[in-house]
Structures are given as C-alpha cells and as structure tokens.
C-alpha cells in the first residue's frame, strides 16, 4: 500500500497516531509528497481546531472575539496563535499565596482536559501541585523558568510525552533513506545525562521517559551528573529574585517558609556537586568506556563536559555508533571556535546530531546532512513578520519569527509563536533527499539579536540559576 492510498483512508491516523501512520519510519515521514501532506495537514488542523474550540476556554474566547468560525487555509490559524505569555498569564501572587485552586482553574482554561475535580487542598508549592496534577489528571505539566518573577507552566500530557520519546528514538537511531531495523526501533543503550536527574523543567521532565524508553527498562543504565532533582519552587524563587534585584527590591523578597525549612538540604546538595562531578567522570571512564550510549545536552554543557573530560585525559570515550544529540541557543555563552572539535574529540563518535524546537511546541525537528532542520510532518511551520505577526508568503526565501501549528498537541492549543528568528526556503528541495520543508541553520533568538535581556533561562543555565537561589538563601538570615 502506498502512502497515497493510506492518506485517503486514514486522516484520523495521521492526526492521532502519526508514528504508525508513517510506519515508525523516519524515511517515510520525510518522503511524503508536499501537496499531499499539506492537504492532510489542512484537514487535520480544521478538525483539531474544532475539538480544541470546544475544550480549551482561552482558545474559545480568542476565537469568538476575533469572529473566526473555521480554518480553511494555513494562514487562517495565524491570528489564533498563542505567544509564550499565555503560559505565564497567571498572577504570580497566586503561587505566593498558595492559591493552587485558582492556579488549577487558570490552567484548566489552557488545557483540553477537565481539571475541575483536581484536589489541591493543602498544596505546599509548585512541585507539590504539579505532582498532584500528575496523579489526578492525564497531564504531565512542564515548566520553564524566567527572570521576570514568574515561570511558564505548559500543560503537556503523558500521552504526548510517550509519543515524544518514541519519536526521539526514531529520529536518533534511524537513517534517512533506510527503513528501520528491529534494533533501531528498540535500541538498548546506556543513557549519559549531564544534568540533574529530575525536575519539572521541560528538559528534565524527559529524563524519566528516557530512563525507561532507551534502556530497555534497566534504570541502572541511566547515568545522571547530579542524582537530585531541580526544585521548581526554588527556580520560582530564583526568578522572583532576579526580578526583585532589577527593581531594587531584594529587601522586600519574602521566602516561603516551606523552602526555608529545606535550606540545609539545598546547601548540602550544592556542596556535593564537585563530588558528583568526579563520580560522573569515574563512571564514564570505568563503566561506560567504549559502550554505545545516548547522550544529550545543550552545546555549552556538552562542551564543558568534553573540556573537563579532556583535561582529565579522557578522549574517544564512547562507541562510535553512539547517539549524541545537542542544540540550543548560544546566548551569553562564549565558546571557542573549535568547540565542536573538542566535543568530538572527547566523545569519539561518528556523528553528532542536532535538533531545533521550543517548549511551547512539542516536536523536535532534526538536523539533516546539509545542516537544515527538517520540519516533522504533523507540524505546520510559519514565518511571521517579527513586528506585526502577519504571515509572510509561503514561497521563496523568507526570514522572520518562527511559529508552528503542531497537530500532535492534544493537551493544549497547538498554534504557538516562538521568540526565534528563522529562515525557510519554501521552494527548496533539500539535497539531503528529504521532501519536507526545513528551517535553515543559524536560528537565533530575537532577544539575542537585539542584545536585550531575555526572560528565559535556557536549559544550559539551570545549574547556575539553581546555585544562585541557594546562595541567596545562604546569605540571608532565615
């Protein structure tokens, strides 16, 4: 059966189970004819919109206010896009006052799931609240930390996280042009995780999934740099701290007694970090040398680890067929020109894969042999005028603000605008052979381009921010 035949009979499968629609094959995902794909995408978007119009209150309000009734063409969805501000539009005072009932009510308006029965009585903080949502609902909320006194809260779900992991495996272990083997579909590797083992931040949440999904269920194959979790309430404090400092109000900052009570625990965790780092390298060299691993982190973290490894005389540490994924912005990070050589030298692997995505969406777009990031078939990309957010034409070479409509997003509205400047050459047939549309390399955050402070702490900065908050707690009388 060809893709075309399947298309006709199974729009539902394309929308709800794209992995099987494409036979779990990376090659098939990126070989579908563009016209055919766009027709599928258009239909799927229209249906998903109707579903979400019913189930997501904030989308319904926006839609009604703008007088939109249905989506026919791609550009019809653009006025309905959410910016990152939608996911931090709750008053931060609700967290301070522990009004997690109201926080739940707020989140309820952003998600397609019904949260009206969630029990938040006695909730002690953000982590506790998210744990309860985990237990009581299909949600698996992720957070992203900021510097303006608030953090983003994104209502992702467990199903999406599971699909996401399967997709990562597909993208990481398959090669375009070759149908997947059984070993590629169910790889068993050691996972090297140069980060905190746990937390609610987007990039830490996936640790649990990876722990189960990549190791064949053997959790002893998961090797984090720091065994502990990043505490979300501590990250919230860090964000408030930075905002207060910029307003000259640090003296007014009140620390939640629940956090205060855990001060010693945080300090001990911080004090262990040097030790943890040593133990991590010992494990890499003694236990994991020559093994096939999966390792992922942002460029700058990957570089730091590689540099520290080379300084300890460790090089070519892993098996050449290991899967290595990196990416992320370079904001505030100065790396030497040869940073990629340092990383390669340390890792000793054949290839290092890169990807592009942003947390409001859920899909990572994989880099090809030409350096372009090919857009996954269930994601409709847009390039918007950076100032007006009007869509730029879907022809020729266009540079502007990236936005996507992600059909696979079920838990929250899939139309989201990023803070990134991207270029798409709409008429390009990429020499790598993939038929899909692609973002050109050299993606940059607008804030980085304009040299302004960005309200975002990247995954690379988690460690520093965590320490900042602990140091602040150390420095004051509690």
């Amino acid at each position, binding site marked *: 059966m060809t893709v075309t035949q399947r298309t006709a009979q199974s729009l539902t499968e394309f929308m709800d189970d794209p992995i099987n629609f494409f036979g779990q094959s990376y090659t098939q995902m990126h070989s579908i004819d563009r016209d055919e794909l766009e027709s599928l995408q258009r239909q799927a978007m229209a249906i998903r919109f109707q579903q979400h119009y019913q189930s997501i209150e904030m989308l319904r309000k926006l839609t009604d206010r703008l007088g939109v009734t249905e989506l026919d063409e791609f550009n019809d969805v653009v006025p309905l896009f959410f910016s990152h501000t*939608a996911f931090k*539009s*709750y*008053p*931060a005072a609700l967290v301070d006052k522990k009004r997690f009932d109201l926080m739940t009510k*707020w989140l309820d308006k952003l998600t397609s799931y019904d949260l009206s029965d969630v029990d938040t009585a006695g909730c002690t903080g953000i982590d506790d609240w998210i744990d309860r949502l985990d237990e009581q609902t299909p949600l698996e909320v992720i957070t992203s930390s900021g510097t*303006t006194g608030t953090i983003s809260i994104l209502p992702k779900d467990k199903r999406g996280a599971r699909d996401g992991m399967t997709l990562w495996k597909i993208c990481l272990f398959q090669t375009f042009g070759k149908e997947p083997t059984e070993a590629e579909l169910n790889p068993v590797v050691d996972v090297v995780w140069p980060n905190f083992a746990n937390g609610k931040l987007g990039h830490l949440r996936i640790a649990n999934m990876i722990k189960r999904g990549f190791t064949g269920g053997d959790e002893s194959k998961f090797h984090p740099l720091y065994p502990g979790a990043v505490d979300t309430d501590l990250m919230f404090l860090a964000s408030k701290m930075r*905002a207060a400092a910029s*307003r000259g109000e640090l003296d007014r900052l009140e620390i939640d007694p629940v956090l205060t009570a855990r001060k010693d625990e945080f300090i001990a965790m911080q004090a262990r970090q040097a030790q943890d780092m040593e133990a991590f390298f010992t494990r890499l060299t003694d236990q994991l040398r020559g093994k096939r691993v999966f390792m992922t982190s942002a460029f700058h973290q990957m570089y730091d680890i590689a540099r520290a490894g080379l300084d300890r005389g460790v090089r070519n540490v892993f098996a050449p067929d290991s899967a290595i994924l990196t990416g992320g912005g370079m904001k505030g990070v100065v790396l030497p020109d040869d940073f990629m050589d340092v990383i390669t030298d340390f890792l000793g692997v054949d290839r290092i894969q890169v990807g592009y995505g942003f947390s409001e969406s859920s899909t990572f777009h994989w880099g090809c042999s030409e350096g372009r990031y090919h857009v996954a078939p269930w994601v409709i990309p847009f390039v918007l005028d950076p100032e007006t957010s009007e869509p730029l034409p879907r022809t020729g070479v266009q540079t502007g603000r990236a936005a996507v409509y992600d059909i696979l997003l079920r838990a929250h509205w899939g139309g989201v605008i990023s803070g990134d400047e991207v270029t798409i050459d709409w008429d390009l047939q990429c020499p790598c052979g993939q038929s899909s549309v692609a973002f050109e390399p050299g993606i940059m955050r607008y804030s980085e381009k304009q040299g302004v402070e960005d309200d975002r702490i990247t995954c690379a900065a988690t460690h520093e921010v965590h320490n900042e908050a602990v140091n602040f707690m150390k420095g004051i009388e509690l």
Partner: protein
Amino acid sequence: MIAYTVPLFLRGRVITDHLVPFDTRVGAAQFQAPDMSKYVEQLPLKSPAEMSDLYELSFDEILDVLEALGNALDFDSNAHLQEAYEASLVANVLPPEMMQNSYRILRPLFSRDNVTEIADSQVGLNYLNGWVPRTLRDGRELRVRAFGSRVLHIPAGNGGLVSAVTILRSVITRSDVIIKAPSNDPLTAIAIARTLADVAPNHPITKHLAVGYWKGGDLAVEENLYQPHHIEKIVAWGGLASVKHVTRYIQPGLELIALDPKRSATIIGREAFDDDDTMREVARRAATDIGVANQEGCANARVIYVLSGTDAEGLANANRLGELIYRELTSLPAVVSTPPRYPNRELLDHLESSRMNDDFYRVIGGEQREGAIVVSQLDEPVDYSPMLSGRVANIVPVDSIDKVTAAVNAYTQTIGIYPESLKRRLRDTLALFGAQRLTSLGYACNVAIAAPQDAIEPIRRMCKWVVDEECEASVVIPLWKLAPA
C-alpha cells in the same frame, strides 16, 4: 543609509572631519559623527586655570548671554534646531508634533527670570557670585563660594529639554562642560551650542562647551577622558546599564552624580468616587500622567493604585475608572500624546494574554496599539509592570495603603496623588520608603527645574564648595597654645 551627521562642537569650532558611521536605536538608519578617538585629546581643558575667564563674568552678563540664546532658540527661524528636529524624527520614537513641541519650550527656559529663579533657589546667587561670609562660634571668619567644575554630562535623550537644562545648569555654575550627545536625541545639544556660538562668538561661555558623540562603552574615548586630571564630575542620566557602566571610572577625584533609572507610581484615594464629575476629573488627570510624551519618561504614571477596595463595589469602581481613563487617554491632544510609533511587542503579547484571563484582569482598549488600561481584579499589579510603556497602564485596586507603600522603593521617582489631603497624610511615610517627588495628580510630567531632582540637588553637587577661613590668633584659640591635658 546615512540619515544625518552629528558634528563635534569643540569650544566654538564645528568639526565634521573623520566621519564614521553609527547605528540609530530605531530602524535601519545610520548616522555619522567624527571619530572621537581622533579628538579625545582636545576635548578636556588643558589646564583648570583656563576656567578663570568664567570668573571675570558678572552674573548679569551670564543672564544676557542666556537670554540672547533663548531668543535665538526660536524653532521657526533657527536652522540648527530644525536640523535637530529632522534628525530626531529618525532617531527618536516620539512622533513629529511632539518633537516639535519639545523645541518650542526651550526659549522660555532661558529667560532672565527663569534662570535667576533656578540659580538662586538651587544654589544661591551670593554663593555663585562671590564669597559668602559667616562667623563661626569659635570666632573664625568663614567665607564659602560655589565654584564650577569640569563636568562631563551624559544626558538622557527623551526630548530636547534635558540637553537644554544640562547647558543651563553648567553655565550658571561657571563650569567647563563636555556633553556626550545621546543617540536618540543626537543634535539638540549641538544645535543649542551652535546657536550659542552664533549669539556669543568667542565668549568664555561658548569656549567652555564641547558637545560630541561617541558610542557608550568606547574604551578608546572613555579611558582617556574619564580621568580625574581631565574631569571632576560625571552627571549620568538614563538606563541602568549605562549608569552602571560609568561607575567603573569613578575614583577619588572623579565623582558620579547619578540621575539613574526611575519608575513612578500613582495613588488615587477613595474620594475619587465621590461623584461623577470628580471621577471624570480624576480620570483626565490620571490619563495625562500616563499619556504625556507617550509614557517614555520616568515620571509617567504606570501602576496606578486605587483605594477603591477589592470587594465587588470596589472592583466595579476601579473598572469604571479604567474605562474613563482610557477614554481620556485616547482623547489627549497630539502634542501631548499619540498612539506610540513603536509599541513594545512583548508588552502587547502580555496584554493579549491578560485579556484572555478575565478572572484576574480587565483589559480596556489596546486592540489597535493605541494604548490600554489593564485593571487588576486582585490587589496585585501585573507581573509585567516594569514593561509598561506606549500608553499602557495598570490600575490596581487595594483595600489599604500598606499595599502601596510596599511597592515604593529607591527606584521610585514621582508619585502623583489624589486628593491633596491624602498626599499630606502620606508624604512622611512615602519619603522613608524611597519616594522622591510627590505631586498633584495630573502634574507628574510637568516638571519644575527650580527644584531638587531625584532626591538630590544636582546643581549644588555640580559645584565645588570652597572654604576660605580667617583665624585671628587672639580670637580663635590656636592649637599651639593648647596646654597639655
């Protein structure tokens, strides 16, 4: 594209050689200015002794020169000002009618009466013009005089008034002045300097003024110039980053007078809701404080605390006031306020998100980027309040004044208050928290020059307060005659 040239005004000479390009803050346009690293050696005085000519001037002569300068700063006939205006249209975010108005207010600033009031109230004419005698309890004869100093000014660029005030303050203190022109108001200080050279060529006042542009942070210029042997004081206005940057040059002998970034607040008492007329009047005044010069200034209203209470009636009142303020805001005349030319996109995104959260916020207007009022439905400002600009303000209903004082700190400049009785009741408390200027609602941006600024007295601080004491040994017991204890 080079949109305009910022010449170097070097003590009467206008230099346009060795031009290099710079980016403007707005859009893609560039401007050019002489490469300051080629002239930095010529910027400061060779010797402080060269300031003696300023002390041969009578204050009357200073008034004559400033009055002539004011008369020549007539926007319709002054080509330098017109050129500055044209450049500001490219460099500044404010619309043409408002920029033009900012030049029209320069002339009265330099009038005899105005200059005299500023000099006398902010320093004291007797201290400026001679030695002021006083006899101390121990019998010594003290004489104090306020001398000018060698000052570098880094003025803010929102409107031409700042450059004019900078020059005025320098002249009345008989200072030697170097002004670093702001990139968003690049030519106003130059235009005033060139007009000064026209009306008073070769005059000592003209010869003690230099104005030029270099990029903030240009070490080749700064490390050479910002030295105690060249300048004694730096007066820095503006953003946190630029003021912080300057502090690296501060050392013994080189003092910083910081007019650093500020935010302002507004407090409206319960009396505003007494009757419809009062409410409308209050709305008009609040709208003015928000709207003047499109909320680009530090004195503009942004977060407006309303003592309406937070019960249903209180919220209804706050919402109604929000509607009225919005209506007044969008009816302000164009010389005072217009929809912003370059609204902050990030702020607009926040505004749209608040609009979708009507449990917590009521957003009035803002759909055409014309400005908006966000009325909090709880007693907290929006979390993006530091971003408020382009005629977007936040009304916060509160039950008690404690909530307001908690929001006042060292970064708070002006607080506009209604009614007067509330202001008098609050003034001693607000001062403790950091408030610097309390004013009648509606006058936040109507700033007097003959008054302290940012809780300091910048003109007094620009002066060196030199003491001459005369001790007659028969009157003031000399130390050499003290008996051992």
